[in-house]
């Protein structure tokens, strides 16, 4: 069993001290038949959502409507897949005693965690990117209301930048899988992501409520990522902020995971 699992690792150079090797090992999940089925389901989603319009988050008159509904659906599907895949990664390695082999080859625990996060993130982001490309292509080829003409280069970039949400989600999934078992990690991650959906209305509430309640509401707001930022239209500086936001949150989860994993008895 262990030998079978290690087989793909032979093709990866510098296994001993390289987190990329762990990332590449995670990427071998692509060869599983279930994953091909997943790709097919995502492609179907892209096909069926190609005719849908854009989301208007606030209302008419405000230029906030360049994110496609199809993008949001694909992104949601990507989040679900990321949570399902990421939450099972480390518990699966532990169950198969793979982790002992990895760490026995003088691989640092921090590198292992980071490698896992990077591997899952590459996997999920590339899959979601593939679905999104399919969506845009099918929209371009088969939608006859000149919908694609209304989409500028910035609009198309916005669709792809929304995939940045998957970085913190992957890190969250890996982080929770260090804290709990695979099932517990999935449940906790889904609840956490639900909270991050709810928290997107907090800035609106903050404008209405008086000052002292403001500060109470700000505390939970900073504890979860705001999903709204990833499905909003932004300018160039906004995109930079978004990249920074996603990376910082992702790194926070990675740091927590590393801290927990370092203290764990394996």
């Amino acid at each position, binding site marked *: 069993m262990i030998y079978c699992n290690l087989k793909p690792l032979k093709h990866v150079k510098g296994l001993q001290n390289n987190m990329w090797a762990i990332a590449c090992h995670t990427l071998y999940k692509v060869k599983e038949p279930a994953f091909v089925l997943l790709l097919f389901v995502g492609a179907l989603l892209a096909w069926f959502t190609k005719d849908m319009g854009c989301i208007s988050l*606030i209302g008419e*008159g*405000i230029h*906030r409507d360049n994110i496609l509904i199809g993008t949001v659906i694909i992104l949601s599907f990507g989040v679900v897949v990321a949570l399902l895949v990421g939450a099972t990664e480390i518990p699966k390695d532990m169950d198969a005693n793979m982790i002992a082999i990895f760490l026995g080859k003088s691989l640092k625990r921090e590198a292992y965690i980071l490698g896992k996060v990077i591997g899952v993130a590459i996997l999920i982001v590339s899959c979601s990117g593939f679905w999104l490309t399919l969506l845009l292509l099918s929209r371009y080829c088969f939608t006859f209301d000149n919908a694609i003409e209304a989409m500028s280069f910035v609009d198309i970039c916005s669709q792809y930048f929304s995939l940045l949400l998957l970085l913190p989600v992957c890190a969250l999934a890996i982080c929770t899988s260090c804290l709990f078992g695979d099932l517990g990690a999935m449940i906790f991650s889904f609840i956490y992501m639900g909270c991050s959906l709810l928290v997107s209305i907090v*800035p*609106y509430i903050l*404008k*209405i409520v*008086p000052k002292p309640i403001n500060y109470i509401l700000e505390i939970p707001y*900073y504890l979860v990522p*705001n999903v*709204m*930022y990833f499905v*909003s239209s*932004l*300018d160039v*500086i*906004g995109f930079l*902020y*978004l990249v*920074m*936001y996603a990376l*910082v*949150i992702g*790194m*926070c989860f990675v*740091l927590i995971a590393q801290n927990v994993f370092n203290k764990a008895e394996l």
Partner: protein
Amino acid sequence: MVIKRKVISLFTLMLFFFLYLVAERGLRTQVYDNAQLNSFDYRKTMEMLPEFLRIALEHQVLLVEKRKNVNNAKGDAKIKAMYILADEYGLGINFSDLMLQITQDSKLRNSKYASRAWLHVLKGKSDKNVLAIYLQYLHSIKKATHTDLIDLFKSGLQLAPFAEEEVKLKYYLNMAKNNLIDKTLIDAYEDFVLLSFKDANIKQIAEKYLKASKDDLLQFEASQARKRATK
């Protein structure tokens, strides 16, 4: 060595927190505090909400009052116009304008004047010719909805000053509620008209009144001006 590592960790944590705050603030400015939203201050709006509501309500009351006044003026003008036209055509006015008013208001679904007219009808001020005209309008009245008739009689009951009229209105209301009003009324009026006014030139008079009912306010003013000129 341990202290150095802890300091570095703390420094990294603070750096991350700072970067997070910077990114979050920048994004919040773009997403939540954009130009359109800045022009609309929620807190200020909430503070001013009672004032807004008061102004809106006052405005609404003024609008309703104005509409009411306009409707009253229009109604009065219609009645006056019909009186003048009835004089011009040499017809009795006691009953004619009121019957026309019923037909018009049934069409307009405005039961206020209709109920007023019904009261006059119930007082027994009738005119031969206009009953004949009313016969012409019966089919359009027949088209008036069931609920309209009920509303009409109900509002008539509210206005009824005499016990005898109240009894009659209650009777009509019951008939309307039981879907009998159209048939009963039409039958009654048809019999009455056919028996009493066999020789009346119904069609001619009806055309005159139809014309009069179409040009209400403008014609009223024109006729008034004409009347003033002749005087």
